[in-house]
């Protein structure tokens, strides 16, 4: 009874914390609970698509109506059902809109299915059952094999390795590609099949590195054993099993509750700036429309109030009209005017924009420059809504690992006592060394080469000072032999890839690390002898110390401490006379973008060692402040060392990464690197990518700089922020004299960032965030390291919502980048090695980082120009289309008499003027692609939505008004005498409208022709074809008595018009008059584009 009580206490305790869940391992009821209630959790399905077959229509419609336009269309549609008959065309418009979105979502469904239908092995009642991944339930025991990814979050129960560990790589989660060790829960090892246990753990939360839980293990009727569970027991969905044959684990979080899914943000419909501009313009046009209708309604009633005008004898009202309420009449008149003028709202623009985006995006996927022969794939377009946004990017947030770098560390060179050693070609050098004298050698000319002892000491240090493990070779037969396998075949496992690079570097110079066997490190030296060292202590790496050491004892009984670390942490701890020789190398290497480490050593006398040994043991056993105590011992022992040399390791950049970054910066884009990686690695990458340059002043806001004697971290943060703010913002010269100003680079890490963002208890929260943002925005490049996936998204969100709401672009390749890809305006996925997560959630996916340049500078620029022109042109052409109709109301007693025939009204936007602009918006290259790629600065010209701001909009609107006035009044003057033919016959109102319409169609088409700077045969075909079609259609439409028409208004009107010389003359002169300002502008503007194009080619 007592035991039950304690258990009840436990459950009570857990129940009070709402955020806990109980899991029955293998769905087996445990003896503690009399009633086994299978808990309900969500299934393991991953849903990244937006719609299902069922909710597609309503959900999509709802989203569509978020656009003002669509809502408006619905209203007009409802009105028109009553008033007029153009409704079906409207319906087509909205249908058109839906199709591409449905197609895109279908692709997402397909991708989801790939994941959800993946076969996994489930252990059920002692049998192995193959299941689809989506059918996994919480509590299932799963078996996962090597190199498979975990289908959900698992608690590790059993591993095929003897020591109850397994290795995983979380590259696709947080970008760290190193191997991490996870541990099984003790006592569960032996028999998973019969394990009777429950797990209590917290409710799902997104932090990848936190997990709290406990496991009750029941054995027969014994007291249940309690085991605590931590993140080291949890295997995350998305991580990959490495170096372990298979594991068994129990599912604790599934589907959308996994940590990966929680770090993934729901796909919200991204809207481009262009769309926002369209909405703004639309509002203006709606105002114009409403005011037009109001003016006309008012005028109508003013006009009717004059005697004899309301109901002249020749135009009596019907009985019904007389009887209806006057105010109701006013209202219906108002609505009729709305319908009459509603063509001013470019309905078809939405179709054309949608088509342009959908069709235009094919040019991205077709581009052979984006094709990567390695992975046999080209670019992928997941959403076509954002093509033009690619031309508006102001901030690029890039992941480091796998995006900027290949995550492939390579030993480049080292420096021993100031002599530079560069590895050139292993085969040509007998001893593996070749000397290329560095600048320091001139000082020590006489010394020549360093003594062999120093070289070997250095190499031994490299071989010993690390935590690398040798990967067990799968071929067991060769294992015993002393002959090392070929360098490339030897596998190493380490928590940091540059440790491997160093060990491999030493291997190339003749010292091979053979492995660690029961505290003994074996090294194969140049003379193929095995040296044995007893490993006494490892002084682990930590980001504050920024170094690590090992203490070893050689066969001869010498006790040695080898230490390697960042220059800044080593230099103060070695003899100062040695520093200068090395410092120059290190600094040069650092600015070359190499990752540098300094290596030092120290002889420990037996007394010293005993002291250290006891100090370390004591600290390790301490229950309180263990970390601090260890640190103190570390710092104590790592002093007075001898500096041997330095190493330079290259984190290999992606192809053309530096060029791409330079081009982006040239285009005025600010590049931020957001990485989960260590600061040093990331910093050197930034140097290598030329994001930081030699003269860049680095401002650091990291855990390290916050460590300041005698100050609280918060105060230090405050001081630093103010200091940096002063430097970058206040002291910065005014924008005009920016040329000579200092470049700043800003470095911040995750811990500090969360301090900045989450210091909510303090009242100056707002200031911190603002200060931080201002500093960042005044720096040319910003590096954020040690970022959790959600923090990356936070940063993006912060910038996105800052003043001026700049357009952001995120580029990444792993699942850890998904949140930022989704958060940014445009998300780019790199089709890298780390799975397809990023690609699936991105808006565009490209095989390599270098493709970003063309994507932004060429495609983005062109798309923006195309669509901006498209939008402006549409508003313009509909304004000058409907303005004459509005003006006509003043001459027909405001009676809603249309100026144009219904066929013309409908066909204008659909047939006569839609194709040329569509062709333009697909093929226009106002500047050739080569030019755009060569001159990144051209990108700045369209920055900040330059072509869709109010200035250009006003210009186009005025142009539309001007044209509308010219069309209407030109013909009005002509019609002061309607006898326009030489037979004296008079023209009527439809002739009037047809002349205006002919001028209109020709003018707007020719206006587009003037704007076209890139005439392909398609443009020719479509522009001249449209005009020809108009003429043909008009003849045809007017040439037949159409049986289905009630009124044959246009019968022979067009043909009669063409028989009049005056009509011809007025058409020609008015077209010319309308286009005259445009021609003048084309002629007088600086002919930059075309000439530049000719020069280039």
């Amino acid at each position, binding site marked *: 009874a007592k035991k039950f009580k304690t258990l009840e206490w436990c459950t009570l305790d857990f129940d009070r914390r709402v955020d806990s869940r109980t899991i029955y391992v293998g769905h087996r009821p445990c003896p503690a609970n009399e009633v086994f209630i299978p808990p309900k959790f969500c299934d393991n399905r991953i849903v990244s698509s937006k719609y299902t077959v069922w909710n597609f229509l309503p959900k999509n419609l709802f989203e569509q109506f978020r656009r003002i336009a669509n809502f408006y269309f619905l209203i007009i549609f409802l009105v028109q059902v009553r008033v007029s008959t153009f409704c079906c065309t409207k319906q087509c418009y909205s249908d058109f809109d839906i199709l591409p979105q449905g197609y895109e979502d279908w692709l997402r469904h397909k991708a989801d299915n790939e994941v959800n239908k993946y076969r996994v092995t489930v252990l059920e009642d002692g049998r192995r059952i193959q299941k689809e991944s989506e059918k996994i339930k919480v509590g299932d025991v799963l078996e996962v094999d090597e190199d498979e990814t975990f289908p959900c979050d698992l608690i590790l129960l059993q591993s095929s390795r003897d020591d109850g560990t397994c290795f995983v790589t979380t590259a696709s989660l947080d970008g760290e590609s190193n191997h991490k060790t996870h541990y099984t829960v003790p006592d569960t090892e032996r028999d998973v099949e019969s394990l009777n246990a429950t797990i209590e753990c917290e409710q799902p939360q997104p932090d990848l590195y936190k997990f709290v839980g406990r496991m009750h293990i029941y054995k027969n009727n014994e007291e249940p054993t309690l085991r605590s569970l931590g993140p080291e027991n949890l295997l995350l969905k998305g991580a990959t099993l490495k170096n372990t044959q298979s594991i068994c684990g129990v599912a604790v979080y599934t589907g959308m509750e996994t940590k990966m899914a929680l770090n993934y943000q729901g796909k919200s419909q991204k809207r481009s700036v262009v769309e926002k501009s369209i909405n703004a313009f639309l509002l203006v046009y709606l105002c114009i429309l409403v005011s037009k209708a109001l003016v006309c309604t008012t005028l109508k009633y003013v006009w009717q109030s004059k*005697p004899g005008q309301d109901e*002249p*004898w*020749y*135009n*009596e009202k019907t009985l019904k009209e007389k009887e209806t309420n006057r105010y109701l009449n006013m209202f219906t008149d108002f609505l009729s005017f709305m319908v009459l003028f509603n063509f001013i709202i470019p309905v078809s623009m939405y179709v054309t924009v949608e088509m342009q985006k959908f069709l235009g995006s094919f*040019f991205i*996927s*077709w*581009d*052979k420059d984006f094709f990567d*022969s390695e992975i*046999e*794939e080209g670019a992928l377009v997941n959403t076509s809504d954002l093509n033009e946004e690619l031309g508006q990017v102001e901030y690029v947030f890039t992941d480091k690992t796998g995006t900027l770098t290949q995550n492939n560390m390579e030993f480049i060179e080292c420096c021993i006592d100031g002599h530079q050693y560069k590895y050139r070609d292993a085969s040509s050098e007998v001893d593996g060394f070749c000397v290329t004298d560095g600048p320091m050698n001139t000082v020590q000319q006489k010394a020549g080469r360093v003594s062999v002892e120093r070289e070997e000491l250095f190499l031994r240090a490299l071989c010993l000072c690390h935590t690398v493990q040798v990967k067990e070779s799968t071929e067991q037969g060769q294992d015993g032999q002393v002959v090392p396998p070929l360098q490339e075949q030897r596998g190493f496992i380490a928590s940091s890839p540059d440790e491997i690079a160093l060990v491999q570097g030493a291997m190339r110079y003749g010292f091979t690390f053979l492995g660690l066997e029961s505290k003994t490190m074996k090294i194969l030296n140049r003379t193929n002898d095995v040296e044995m060292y007893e490993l006494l202590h490892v002084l682990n790496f930590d980001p504050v110390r920024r170094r690590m050491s090992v203490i070893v004892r050689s066969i001869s009984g010498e006790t040695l401490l080898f230490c390697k670390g960042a220059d800044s942490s080593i230099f103060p701890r070695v003899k100062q006379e040695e520093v200068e020789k090395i410092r120059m190398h290190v600094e040069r290497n650092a600015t070359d973008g190499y990752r540098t480490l300094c290596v030092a050593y120290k002889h420990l006398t037996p007394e010293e060692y005993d002291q250290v040994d006891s100090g370390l043991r004591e600290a390790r056993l301490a229950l309180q402040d263990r970390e601090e105590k260890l640190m103190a011992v570390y710092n104590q022992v790592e002093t007075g060392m001898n500096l041997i040399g330095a190493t330079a390791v290259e984190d290999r950049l992606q192809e053309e990464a530096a060029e791409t970054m330079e081009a982006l910066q040239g285009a005025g884009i600010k590049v931020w690197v957001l990485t989960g990686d260590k600061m040093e690695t990331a910093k050197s990458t930034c140097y290598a990518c030329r994001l930081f340059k030699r003269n860049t002043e680095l401002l650091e806001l990291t855990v390290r700089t916050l460590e300041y004697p005698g100050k609280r971290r918060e105060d230090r943060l405050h001081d630093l922020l103010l200091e940096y703010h002063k430097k970058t913002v206040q002291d910065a010269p005014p924008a005009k004299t920016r040329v000579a100003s200092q470049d700043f680079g800003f470095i911040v890490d995750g811990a500090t960032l969360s301090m900045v963002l989450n210091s909510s208890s303090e009242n100056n929260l707002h200031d911190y965030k603002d200060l931080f943002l201002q500093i960042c925005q005044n720096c040319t490049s910003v590096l954020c390291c040690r970022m959790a996936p959600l923090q990356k998204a936070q940063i993006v969100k912060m910038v996105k919502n800052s003043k001026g709401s700049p357009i952001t672009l995120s580029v990444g390749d792993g699942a850890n980048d998904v949140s930022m890809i989704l958060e940014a305006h445009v998300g780019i996925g790199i089709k890298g090695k780390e799975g397809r997560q990023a690609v699936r959630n991105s808006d565009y996916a490209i095989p390599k980082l270098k493709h970003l340049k063309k994507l932004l500078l060429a495609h983005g620029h062109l798309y923006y120009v195309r669509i901006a022109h498209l939008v402006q042109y549409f508003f313009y052409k509909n304004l000058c289309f409907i303005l004459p109709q509005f003006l*006509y109301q003043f*001459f*027909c*007693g405001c*009676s809603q*008499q249309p100026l144009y025939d219904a066929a013309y009204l409908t066909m204008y936007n659909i047939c006569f003027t839609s194709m040329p602009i569509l062709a333009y918006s697909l*093929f226009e*290259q106002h500047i*050739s692609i080569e030019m755009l790629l060569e001159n990144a600065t051209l990108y700045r010209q369209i920055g900040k939505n330059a072509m869709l701001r109010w200035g250009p909009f006003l210009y186009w609107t005025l142009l539309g008004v001007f044209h509308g006035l010219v069309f209407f009044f*030109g013909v009005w003057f*002509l019609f002061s*005498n*309607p*006898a*326009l033919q*030489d*037979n*004296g*016959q*008079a*023209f009527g109102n439809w*002739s*009037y409208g047809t002349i205006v319409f002919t001028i209109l169609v020709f003018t707007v088409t*020719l206006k587009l022709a003037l704007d*076209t*700077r890139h*005439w*392909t045969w398609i443009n020719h075909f479509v522009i001249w074809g449209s005009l020809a079609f108009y003429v043909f259609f008009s003849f045809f439409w007017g040439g037949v*008595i159409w049986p289905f*028409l009630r*009124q*044959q208004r246009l019968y022979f009107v067009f043909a*009669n018009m063409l028989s*009049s*010389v005056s009509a011809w003359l007025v058409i020609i002169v008015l*077209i*010319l*008059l309308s286009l*005259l300002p445009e*021609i003048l502008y*084309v*002629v*007088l503007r600086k*002919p930059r584009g075309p000439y530049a*194009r*000719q020069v280039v080619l």
Partner: protein
Amino acid sequence: MFRVSVLQTTDVIPSKEKSRCGRVGGVSRSEKMVKQESESANRPDNTAFTQQRLPAWQPILSAGIVIPGFVLIGLAFIGIGVALLVTSRSIQVLELDYTGDGNGSPCSSCSQSTTVNCKCSLNFTLDTLFQGPVFFYYGLSNYFQNYRRYGASKDDNQLYGDLSYFTSPSSSCSPYDYDGSKNPIVPCGSIANSMFNDTFTLTRTVSGKTDSVPLDGKGIAWWTDYNVKYRNPSVTPLKNAFNGTVKPIDWAKPAYELDTSDASNNGFVNQDFLVWMRRAALPNFRKLYRRIDASGDYQNGLPAGNYTIDITYNYPVRVFNGAKKVVFSNVSWMGGKNEFLGIAYLVIGSLCVVMSVVMLIVYAKFKFPDEE
């Protein structure tokens, strides 16, 4: 990868603007044939179209082309303008208002009475020959033939001679579709009902002797209206087709009696009716009434002399502040008298010339880089 040839060609871009075009971009066919060896299914097609490298023309409006072009266009326009203006000036127009507003005017008595077929007459004198062919128009002011409800108020099927619409006119004709006793009106609708019903005869007084001027009513309406768009029902006699229908309320006689003298000008294909049915574009308009028959004394138009127009005054316009007039005009190749076109051409032509001068100055001063 792509070899691009730059060709200089000349092309004419719209609005008669001469331009020099550079041929840019392009892939020769042979290059398209060169296929990558490692052709894979995913590899994008390497065609000019997919790679956005279609051969393209780049219109270049350089000063060397534009300035002479503008001068040419300007001069041509000025030439046309002068021709138009001269032509327009040579057209003679005689307008006579006969609304009868003032007490002094000849038709004032008629305008105030409501008598049917009230007679009045206008006199005018021609000092010189009114060059033929002379057209005789009537004009109405402040008359909204372009009013929407008015314009829609007709039944084209009926007017096309479809008998089924005789008995049930379109509802758009309302309130002129049925009369008070529910008889269908043919032709129905406001337009037909309000047909202009003043009639004119023109006489010339030569040495005390009045001589009626021959007026020709043929071909005053559009040929297509007369021959295709409007048709009488194929019933003989025409009168029978109208059985069971009534004439429009304001008409003096039914449609089949519009011109009893000429069967081909009767019913719906009556020229006056057709002229009226073609709605005017603006509230002040004129419609063709007759042509002066070029025969006998009137071979060359109206000779100098005293003329009298005898008017049968029926059409009320004063209720809506309208006005009526008769207009004599001859026409040229450009139609009736209209100074607007000539002036527009002159203005725009000279604008072009002025602009080319301005451009010349600008170019001379700033030396654009293309002037090699």
